[in-house]
């Protein structure tokens, strides 16, 4: 059954898949830094949503949909409209190209992220594995 995006259930499923991924574990074995993904409203989705994803040493110990970005502390914040996130999840927009063209806006140390490009790719691969309901 498809899982609604954005939702607490969706981000927890992403966390679960990351914890099962050997490729992610290998590529992010030294990684320390949590993320908040901000889903901004657009014509396809009228609200703002905040998804917290904890990431530590190749695992995802925690994930939750939160009420505000202040609720959980995160080293990195990536924000984009709902439809842009949908393109990323469906594999139509490479997230690194998305950041290079500023369709995805990052707050945080990009230098640190660029040392783990394979891990970023694995996160997107796991996103694509989630049967997602975009509310169509």
């Amino acid at each position, binding site marked *: 059954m498809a899982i609604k995006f954005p939702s607490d259930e969706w981000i927890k499923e992403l966390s679960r898949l990351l914890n099962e991924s050997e490729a992610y574990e290998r590529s992010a074995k030294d990684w320390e830094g949590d993320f908040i993904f901000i889903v901004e409203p657009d014509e396809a989705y009228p609200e703002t949503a905040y998804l917290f994803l904890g990431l530590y040493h190749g695992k995802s110990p925690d994930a939750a949909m939160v009420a505000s970005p202040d609720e959980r502390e995160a080293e990195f914040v990536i924000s984009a409209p709902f439809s842009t996130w949908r393109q990323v999840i469906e594999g139509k927009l490479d997230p690194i190209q998305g950041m290079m*063209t500023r369709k995805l806006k990052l707050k945080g140390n990009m*230098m640190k992220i*660029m040392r783990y490009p394979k891990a970023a790719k694995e996160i997107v691969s796991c996103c694509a594995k989630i049967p997602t309901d975009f509310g169509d």
Partner: protein
Amino acid sequence: MWYFVSPQVVFGEGALDALDEIQGERALIVTDATLVELGLVERVVSHLKRAGIEAHIFAEVEPDPSVPTVKKGAEVAREVEPDWIVGLGGGSAMDAAKAVWILYERPDLEPAEINPFVPLGLRQKARLITVPTTSGTGAEVTWAIVLTDPVEQRKMGLGNRENVADIAVVDPVMAAGMPPRLTADTGLDALTHAVEGFTCTWHTDLTDGLCLQAARIVFQYLPRAVEDGSDMEARERMHNAATCAGLGFGNSMASIAHAMGHVLGAVFHVPHGRAVGLFLPYTVEFVAREAPDRFAELARLLGLTDGEGEPAARALAQGLRDLIRRIGNPLSLAEAGIDRESFDGQLDKLVDDAFNDTQMVTVARSPSYDELRQLFICAYEGRVVNF
């Protein structure tokens, strides 16, 4: 949405004359000591003099330029206060020139902070001219910068669209003196750019034609340039091919052969073009097991097969092996002179670093850690990839 960036490219015999028309007061030439000895730096200096530009020379760039070197170059730039930086040489010198230019303009930045995601605000103090003296790197038209961190023995992929050169002067006379081995190595670099630029997941309609034409030229003219360095037609076509491939992959991306080549160069100091060219047939075979179509299309367009799917992709791999053998380059890491004990001792590092190389994100079939390990072993032993 994507971008295509390019300098103004002045190419062909006599292209150096374009320097006579440059407007400015002072230039800092970033290069290496060998090119000073060979008289190639003096050629550029004489053209700049005709333009009324005072030339200063920083000739301390080493192969695989390091962070300390570009910081030193930036210090020299701050003393000289040039309005032109001239990157003269192979990829190392031109990459170093880009980094020196950025650090001169932005002394608040560390080299590792040069990335494509933030505005740099360049061209407040100087602009950049690139003059390649090899036919392969494409660095004269790309914004990529590869620097080596000597502490971690790791190459860092850096760069920002803003740091593409303003003018690239692509004159074949500057590459005419390359010895056969350097001609072969750098030519394979150009070919790997062309093949990976055409087949990576970031390829575009605007880059495909450049990559295809570059590959065609290399297949036709690289053996001639290697066998007879005085064949100026071959020299000029290879010089053009390198720039075409640079524009192609520089506006798409390279891929897994570059990821593997970067770490091999950092650990075993194998010349860049030799390393990436050596890996290319193996990575073509690996990726084509699951995603053969782009390789098959390229193989057909190059006239290597009229087939489809994985068999056609394998024809491309075989065509690459035939070319590499014909120009006398190694087809395995063992042939490249790396002894088995050293290879086994460094294998974990090779796999770890290649796994997280920036070029790995654009491969159409992403290898697992164990698959990447097997790829390195196949390349060591010269075994065809069948997994």
